[in-house]
Structure formats: C-alpha cells, structure tokens
C-alpha cells in the first residue's frame, strides 16, 4: 500500500503523465462502454456515403455510408486489444528469453542472443507484413506478428537486468539455501528486474497500435473488425473530398499513442527514479 502511494506520488509529479493517464482512461472507457451506449453496427450502411461530421451522424459516414463514430468506438476496442495483447505476449516471451539468457549466461545466453539478433536484423515492419500476409490477416495473426517483431527488445532489456542482478548478494543467498532456479528467477530476481521492462512494454503498446494501423492501411487487417488503421485505409481513397474521414481515426491513434507514451514516461519516473532523464 505504502509502495503504491509512493509510486503514485512520484507518478503524479509528471503532469504530462497524469494528463496521459486521464486521456488513456477516457479512451478505454470509450472502448468499453462506447459501443453499448452507441449501439450502431460499424459495418452497417446507415446513410449516404461520405457525409461530413456533425450532420445526421456525429462524425459523418465513411465511403460505404457507415457510421464513423461507431467505427471509432469499435475501433478503439480492436486497436487497444491488439496493442495490449501484442505487448503482453511480446513482454512474456521477451522476459522469458531475456531471463534465461541473463540468468544462465554462457552458451544458453549466446544461443538465445543469436536468435534475438536474428529477429533484430530483419526490418520489423517487413517481418510483420510477411507474417500477416502468409498466415492471413486475423486479429490473432496480427497480434502474433506484432508480438514476434517486438519481443527482442524486451529480451535484451530483461537480459541486461538479469545479468545485473544475478551476482547480487541476495541471489547468492538464495542459491546457497538451495532454492530452485525457477524460483530465484521468478520470485526473487523478477520483481527487481521488472520495472524497466514495464516501462518498455507500456511504450510497446503504443508502437503496436501504430504497427496495427500500418498493417490495416496496407489491407492486412482483420476484415471482420474495424480498427482505426482500417478506417484510415478505407478513407484513403476519398482523401481529397473527405479528408476528415482519415483525419478522425488518425487523430484518435495520435491521441491514444501520445497518451500511452506519456503514461510510459510517468511509469519511468515512478519506477526508475534513477533513470529519470532517459
């Protein structure tokens, strides 16, 4: 409790982070209850195509006469879900690899780091495009593709933390009393290694949302679901006549990603006081 209070006190000091958290909360609320309060199917042709905002439809209609507001609210879900799931998956995988490599070192480390390097050598967006195109675009494949291209940076970070921690006294102590490795890794080192990882993976949510939007823009999004990137892709063809149609979801991505980045910075301040300036 006390730790949480301290965390909050440190976090609160960064005004941008507080604003980011508030914005993010708004987006999350919109994603959760928006579609319930505004129960319009985002794929239903409800009106004339390409109507401007603030007419019969609060945010206008898209190229196929579908309600943009409904798309924005439903898209919030998809964008957030993909962003969060992909980062979670990438974090889990990255931490696992990084922890094992960092804790055991030696050849295991060498091998795992080669694999990591390999993934870092292929341009990440290209890899994501390839994976999604090959395994067909669905929420699942898009999420996996983003996770696959994101985990190596987490792995590197986690490895560094584990290397820094593994020779500390408390770890030696744990070994001395015969604690199994997994317990040392998960219960002893992990809590100490996690703060910077949390910061990085929070920022990864933002990157994942951007990546998803890029994939959708290329037509590599799940065709059964509306995401913001999808909406931009749809609006692209009428950019000249209905710029707002691309501008609205674009602005939503911008605001959300910005909010997440601000939150990330706040977390950084709160969790890594010594690295405050990074």
């Amino acid at each position: 409790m006390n730790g949480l209070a301290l965390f909050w006190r440190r976090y609160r000091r960064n005004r941008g982070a507080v604003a980011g958290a508030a914005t993010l909360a708004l987006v999350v609320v919109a994603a959760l209850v928006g579609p319930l309060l505004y129960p319009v199917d985002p794929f239903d042709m409800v009106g004339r195509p390409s109507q401007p905002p603030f007419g019969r439809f609060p945010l206008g209609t898209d190229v196929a006469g579908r309600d943009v507001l409904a798309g924005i609210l439903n898209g919030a879900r998809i964008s957030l879900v993909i962003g969060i799931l992909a980062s979670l998956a990438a974090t889990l995988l990255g931490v696992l690899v990084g922890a094992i490599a960092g804790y055991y070192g030696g050849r295991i480390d060498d091998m795992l780091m080669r694999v990591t390097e390999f993934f870092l050598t292929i341009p990440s967006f290209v890899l994501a495009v390839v994976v999604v195109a090959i395994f067909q675009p669905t929420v699942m494949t898009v999420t996996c593709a983003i996770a696959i291209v994101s985990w190596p940076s987490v792995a590197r970070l986690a490895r560094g933390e584990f290397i820094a921690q593994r020779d500390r006294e408390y770890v030696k102590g744990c070994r001395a009393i015969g604690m199994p490795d997994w317990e040392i890794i998960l219960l002893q080192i992990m809590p100490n290694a996690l703060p910077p990882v949390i910061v990085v993976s929070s920022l990864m949510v933002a990157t994942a949302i951007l990546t998803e939007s890029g994939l959708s823009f290329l037509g590599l999004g799940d065709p059964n679901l509306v995401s913001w990137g999808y909406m931009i892709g749809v609006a692209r063809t009428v950019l000249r006549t209905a710029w707002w149609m691309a501008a609205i979801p674009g602005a939503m991505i911008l605001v959300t990603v910005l909010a997440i980045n601000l939150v990330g910075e706040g977390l950084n301040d709160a969790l890594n006081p010594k690295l405050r300036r990074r």
Partner: protein
Amino acid sequence: MRQASLLFLVRRLVQVVPVVLAIAAVNFFLLRMAPGDVADILAGQMGHATLEFTQQLRREFGLDQPVYMQFFYYIGKLLTLDLGRSHLQQAPVIDLILDRLPATVILMLTSILIAIAVGIVLGVAAARREGRLADTLVSVTALVVYATPAFWLGLMLIVLFSIQLDLLPSGGMYQIGAGRTGLAHALDVAKHLVLPSVTLGLFYVAIYTRLMRASMLEVYGLEFITTARAKGLSETTIAWTHALRNALLPVVTLAGVQFGHLLGGSILVETVFAWPGLGRLVFDALLQRDLNLLLGILFVSSVVVVFANLAVDLIYGLLDPRIVHK
C-alpha cells in the same frame, strides 16, 4: 592500430555469413508456408489457365521439386551470390533490386540525415533549456510527432502541400519524360524527395530529438562538463564540442538499427508517395508470391542491416577513442 581495425572488420564479416545464411533459410521456409505460389499467380493473371499449364509453369520454375531440394538449390546459388530469377518479372532478382535500391537508399539516407540533423539540433536546444518553455515545446512536439502514423501524415502532407498549395509533386521520384539531366534532374529529384523524406524522417526526428535530449542531459551531468565550464568555455562551445560528441554515441547506435528498419517504414511511405523503391517492391513481391524476389530483397536488406551495424561500430571508434576493436 589500423591492423587491429582491419582484423576486427574481417572477423565481423566472417561472423556475418552464418547470420545471413540463417536469415535466408528462415525466410525461405517462412515464405514457403504461404498458400499458393508464383505459378498460381501467373495462371491467375492469365485469366483462365489450365492445370496442365500451371504444372508446366511449376516445372519451368523448378517448383515441382521437393522443398528441401529447392532449398539446397537456393542456398547453393546464394553461396555463389546468385539471387536467382524473378519468375513473375522475368528478370534476374539482382537486377530488379539494383534497379530499385538507389531510390530507397536516397530516400532512407535523406530521411535519416534529416532526422539526425534536426534531432540533434532540437535535442541539444531542449537539453540546454531543460525544464523551460522551449524544452517543453520541443518535447511535446516530439511526442506528438512520435505518435503520428507515418502513412497518415504522408497523406495529410499531400493534401496540404500538393493539392491545396500546389507546391510539391504528390508522388514519383522525378518528372517522367521531362528528360532532365545533371543539375536540373537532381533538383527535380530533390523536389520529389521533400514530402516522402520528411514523412519518413519526421517520426525519426521525434525519436532522435528525445534520445539526443536525454543523452545530452546525461552528459551534462558528467564532471568534464564542469571542467569545461571552469575553463571558461561558453555554454555554446560546451554544448557543441564537449557535450555533443559524447552524447552522440547512443544516436549512432540507434541510427544503425534504424537504417535497417527504414525499409519497413518505407513500405508505407513508398506506397503513399509512389516512390519506386525496395519497400514497395517487397510488398508487391509478397502479394505475388515472387519468392525469389522476396527472398532476394530480404537478403539484401539484412546484409544492409549487418553492414549498417558494422558501420556503427566503426563510427563508434571514430567518435570515442576509448573503444578499441578487439
């Protein structure tokens, strides 16, 4: 000293070979998991081909062989630096890539140079005014730009600069058929380069600004900056000589990593701006199952990344005399 560097270079190059081969292998098998092959695509483009016809195509392209045979064949050719032929474009892969490579390299270099230059200036400026209005402005702007999807930004820039203001061309690399040469051609290309490179670069400007600011602040905390002040140097001199070069190391690292990743970003930007580069080619090749071409591009791009990292190591050595390549 020099010999050591050379040795380091050779060793790094030798280390690169298995990595690159591994990449080729993984790419090969990954791409083979895609449904359909180039014969399907070609047959599809024909309108109505027969099974016999598609089989003939497969034989022609060697796609009727077992996958492992195809793989050994591919790797074998790769070892002799032969990237094979694009079955769809009916040309050697290397030609197709070399055709497109300059455009992508120009775009990448320009964007990354813009990004680094602007990032350095803004980052240093912000760091020197830490906590003040200018710093806040720069930092907030950087964050906002960082959060902007590049393709969207590109479209918006087209709307503004190409359509509304009619200042810049909306796409392409130069005015086709104008037959310009020499300086006129270069200027023409430069004009076409503005929007795509700014679009691709802005995102990285944001990153470099933030990184540079952080890095500068870290260096500002070091004692030799105090020494420099105690020597009577002006703040400007301190920032641009003593602090900057030390603060550049992380920027160089990032630039190395990103040079490779630019190919990814350039898929989107090249699509938006009809830039005839590799990014677009990779996407088209993927959709058309042009396996050899795709493998070739991925191969070349990973080689580029590897060399970019090598360059980073070398630049490191130039920037920081403490680093000795072992």
